[in-house]
């Protein structure tokens, strides 16, 4: 075999291996997706949306309490996390720029984005749950806010950076003060990008389970008082899936399906926004 032939053979072998690993990888992932969709659709019915938790064996148990609890916890976290994250990101991009302080905040935020979320749960337990003496929806929201902040901050920073500085200069030349330039020119130019960041940030925290285990805890019934323990789809899913009762496990799959569709939906919408912007 000549050297060239050998190279071609090696090339073909590697390409087949690569395609195979892609196949195996995608196979596993679509297996999981398939399991999720099949079990989820199988478990879905109207009762799930209108009923609250019930003991195992009861026909009419549902997930209404968990869905509403999830909306409360994630909603409150979004309410605080998004404006705070955007404002902090604004500081980095518009005032801090390449200054040392801004760089440190960027680095720390990047690290926090990958830090274990269960540790945030332990932290919130120490500062809120322990002093209050009981779990609460607020504690869950605070944990999710802390997880969401660095994500929103970094995307805002990046997106504002993409706005051409000539736009800012033009506005300054007209005599606009800096805050007006930021709010009326820079934010407007980065709107789609910021929105994408917000959607991806919300999608990310909506799937968090570990930080809720010992902050918002769980509740089998509908509760809209943020001072009390609150159900969430993720913690409910965990509790039901690890229970020995078949109908609870089924509810767990339904919760997994609903939550995944919500998160994938947010991701897809966010991507469409970004594509639209690039297309312009």
């Amino acid at each position, binding site marked *: 075999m000549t050297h060239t032939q050998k190279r071609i053979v090696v090339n073909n072998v590697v390409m087949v291996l690569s395609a195979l690993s892609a196949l195996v*990888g995608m196979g596993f992932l679509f297996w*999981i997706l398939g399991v999720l969709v099949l079990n989820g659709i199988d478990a879905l019915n109207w009762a799930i949306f209108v009923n609250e938790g019930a003991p195992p064996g009861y026909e009419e148990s549902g997930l209404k309490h968990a869905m509403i609890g999830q909306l409360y916890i994630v909603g409150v976290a979004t309410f605080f996390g998004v404006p705070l994250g955007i404002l902090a990101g604004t500081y980095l991009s518009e005032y801090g720029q390449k200054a040392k302080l801004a760089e440190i905040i960027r680095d720390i935020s990047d*690290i926090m984005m990958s830090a*274990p979320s269960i540790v945030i749960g332990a*932290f919130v337990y*120490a500062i809120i749950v322990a002093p209050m003496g009981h779990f609460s929806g607020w504690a869950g929201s605070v944990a999710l806010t802390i997880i969401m902040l660095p994500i929103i901050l970094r995307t805002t920073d990046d997106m504002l950076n993409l706005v051409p500085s000539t736009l800012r200069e033009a506005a300054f030349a007209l005599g606009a003060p*800096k805050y007006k330039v930021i709010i009326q020119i820079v934010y407007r130019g980065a709107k789609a990008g910021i929105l994408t960041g917000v959607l991806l940030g919300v999608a990310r925290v909506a799937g968090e389970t570990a930080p809720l285990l010992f902050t918002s805890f769980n509740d089998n019934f509908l509760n809209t008082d943020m001072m009390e323990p609150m159900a969430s789809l993720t913690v409910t899913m965990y509790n039901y*899936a690890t229970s020995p009762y078949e109908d609870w496990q089924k509810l767990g799959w339904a919760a997994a399906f609903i939550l*995944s569709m919500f998160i*994938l939906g947010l991701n897809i919408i966010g991507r469409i926004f970004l594509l639209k912007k690039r297309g312009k």
Partner: protein
Amino acid sequence: MSAIVDKFFFYLTRTIALGILLIVAWIFVELFNNSLDSIQAFGFDFITEDKWAPNLEKFGALPAIYGSVISTFLAMLLAIPLAIGVAIFLSELAPAKLKTPFGVSIELLAAIPSVIYGMWGLFYFVPIIRDAFGGVGISMLTAGIVLSIMILPFIAAVTRDAMNTTPDILKESAYALGGTKWDVIKDIVIPYAKAGIIGSFILALGRAIGETMAVTFVMGNVHRISADLTQPATSIPVTLANEFNEADSGLYYSSLFELSLLLLVISFTIISIAKFYFLRRKRIGA
């Protein structure tokens, strides 16, 4: 008037940005303060002692540390070769029509919450391990495999991104010299993207070691060090998720807080290495 609002807006954004640093510092301080009892009671023995016996008020973190290290190592060992294969497929091999849909579906799979990977592992993968190796199927090995599948999309996506930074002109030059696809990948793409690829592996390692939900379902939370991978085991996040709400004494709580602190320090260190050593160089080079 305008000048006042201007100043106000500046200080508002600055305060919030500084607040992020404050929160991170606060997390460390709070976890440390809550660990004090355990640090005083056990000192350095905490991480070398292999007995975790809440009823005897004896807490040693070695089994959890061991479990974290081994399960993460297993996961990386399985995920990295597969992820490199997927990344090569996505960036060099797949027909242009397939690249986008494949790439997007990998990214979407990385967005699926880890609790769902854990659930799938419990219902569909545990029985397979049980049939293959006997025992209960809940084991270190199961946890390692489920973890590897969970981080696969993340590693594949970032490795592909790193490989895609290679300028086309470099690749085209190599093809013009008669290189095969594999020649180009091994001699051009991988050397060019090396720092980015290694950085993303380490970043994935940092994430995997703190991952809770994907492994909590399938690991068993048994505080025993066993060389047999098919035995139930535990890891730091698994211990936290299982025992935090059950802790009934100050020392128990304090030990769990020390575990959290340990986990935070470990992942902070790993992620920092990835970020400062490997990924920064890429940014300058790119």
